[in-house]
C-alpha cells in the first residue's frame, strides 16, 4: 500500500503520492524532497542529528513516519537562514566556533531553536540538559553551549 503525503516544508507546500507508510520522515526529507541538510546518524533516536521542527516542536525525523507529517509544517535546517542571511543562532554558532565536522550541527541548531522558544536558558546547566539528546563527537560541547548561551542572551536583550 502507498499513501499521499501533503506537507509544508520550510514554507513550501509538497503533495507527494505513492509514499510507502514505512518511509521515515528523515528519508522522505532527504531522498524524496532532496533536502539533505537533515543528517541521518544512528537512525534509532539516540544521536539527534536528524532533528527537525514539526509544527514548531523539535522531533527526531528518524522516529517519525513521513505519513505522520501529513498536514503538518516542517522546518529543516535549510529553513533557518540562507548563507548570506544566517539567523541569530546560526550566527552565534559561527561566532563561537560551535561546530567542527558539522555532522551534528543541523540537529544541534534545530534543538537549539526549540530550546530558545521553550526555556529561559539562564544557566549552562539548563542548556546542557536541553542538549542531552544530541551527540557531538568533535567539539566537547563547550562551544555549542557558548553559542546557545550567546543566542539566549541576545534574545533577552532584544525582548
Amino acid at each position, binding site marked *: *500500500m502507498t*499513501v499521499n503525503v501533503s506537507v509544508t516544508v520550510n514554507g513550501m507546500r509538497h503533495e507527494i503520492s505513492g509514499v*510507502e*507508510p*514505512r*518511509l*521515515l520522515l528523515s*528519508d522522505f526529507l532527504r531522498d524524496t524532497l532532496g533536502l539533505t541538510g537533515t543528517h541521518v546518524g544512528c*537512525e*534509532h*533516536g539516540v544521536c*539527534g542529528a536528524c*532533528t527537525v521542527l*514539526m509544527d514548531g*516542536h*523539535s*522531533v*527526531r525525523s*528518524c*522516529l*517519525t*513516519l513521513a*505519513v*505522520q507529517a501529513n498536514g503538518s509544517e516542517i522546518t529543516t535546517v535549510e529553513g533557518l537562514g540562507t548563507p548570506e542571511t544566517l539567523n541569530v543562532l546560526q550566527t552565534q554558532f559561527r561566532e563561537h566556533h560551535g561546530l567542527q565536522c558539522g555532522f551534528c550541527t543541523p540537529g544541534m541548531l534545530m*534543538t537549539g531553536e*526549540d*530550546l530558545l522558544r*521553550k526555556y529561559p536558558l539562564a544557566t549552562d546547566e539548563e542548556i*546542557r*540538559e*536541553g542538549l*542531552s*539528546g*544530541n551527540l557531538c563527537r568533535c567539539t566537547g560541547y563547550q562551544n555549542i553551549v557558548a553559542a546557545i548561551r550567546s543566542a539566549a542572551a541576545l534574545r533577552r536583550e532584544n525582548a
Partner: protein
Amino acid sequence: MKPARFEYVAPASVDAAVETLLAANGEGKLLAGGQSLLPLLNFRMARPAVLVDLNGIKELSFIELRGESVVIGALTRHREIEHSPLIASRLPVMSAAMRHVAHLAIRNRGTIGGSLSHADPAAELPMMAMFYAARLTVQGPAGRRTIAAKDFFVDALTNCLEPEEIVVEIEFPIPQHDGWVFEEVARRFGDFALASIAVSIRRGQSGIEDARVAAMGVADTPLRLEDVERRLCEIEIDVRMPDRFCEWVRSSVSPNSDLHASGEYRKHLLGELARRALKTALAAKGDRR
C-alpha cells in the same frame, strides 16, 4: 527505508482502533508517540502486519481536573504534561519528574499512554502512576474497564492488557501533602534512571500524618513502598529520621546488576537519594528538585 512493510491504518476513534486491532488478529501494533516503537521497527525487532496510528484520535489528548483527581488523556504528550500549570499545582512531583523524561525531542512526541503501556521499569511516568496510585481506563472489544497501576505493571516491559485493549485515560488522585521531592540519578541527563525516588508527606502536629514513597530502577516494575510509608507515620520526626528512612528503603529493594550498575550500587544509591529526599521534604514545603 528501515522498518519492514506494514499496513497503515489511522482510525478516528477509539472504537475504530479497537476494531482494527481485532481485525489484525494479533498482528496489529498501536502507534502513539512512537519514541519506543519506531526504534524497534527500524531495527526490525518488531514487524507488525498492521500499524494502528492513534494520533488522529484528538479526544485522547487532554489534561483536566475531575473532582479530587487530575485525569490525563492517553495521547497527551510529555511536553504538555511538563508545561501544564494544572499538573504543576496539583501533581507537583509529576511536574518535577517530567524534565527527567528522555530528551526534548522525545518529550515533544512521546505520550503518557504509550509510556505506561511500554512499562519500562526505569521510566518516570510508570513510576508516577505507582506513586499517585493512578487508575487506568482501557477500552477493548468488551467495552471499558479500570485497572489500578499496581495491577497494570506485570514485569519489565510487560503490562496486563489484553491484545485488543487500548489505554484511554489515566486518573491521578491528588494527595493532600505539603512536602515533596523527586530525586533521580542517570548516567547522562535524560537517560533511563539508575535509581530514582519520589517522596511526599503531610506533616501533622507531632509527626508525619500521611506519606507516599515510590522508587524505580531497582526492580522489574516501578515500586510503591507502602511498608516504608507506614513506618514513616509511626515515628516522631527527629534528626535520625532520614537515616532510618534510608535503611528502610534499602532493605525493601533487591535490585539486579546489569551493564550500567551493580545491584549493590543501585541499592546504595537509592538509599542516599532517599535520605536526601526526606531531609528536603521535611525542611521545605513544596521544594522542587
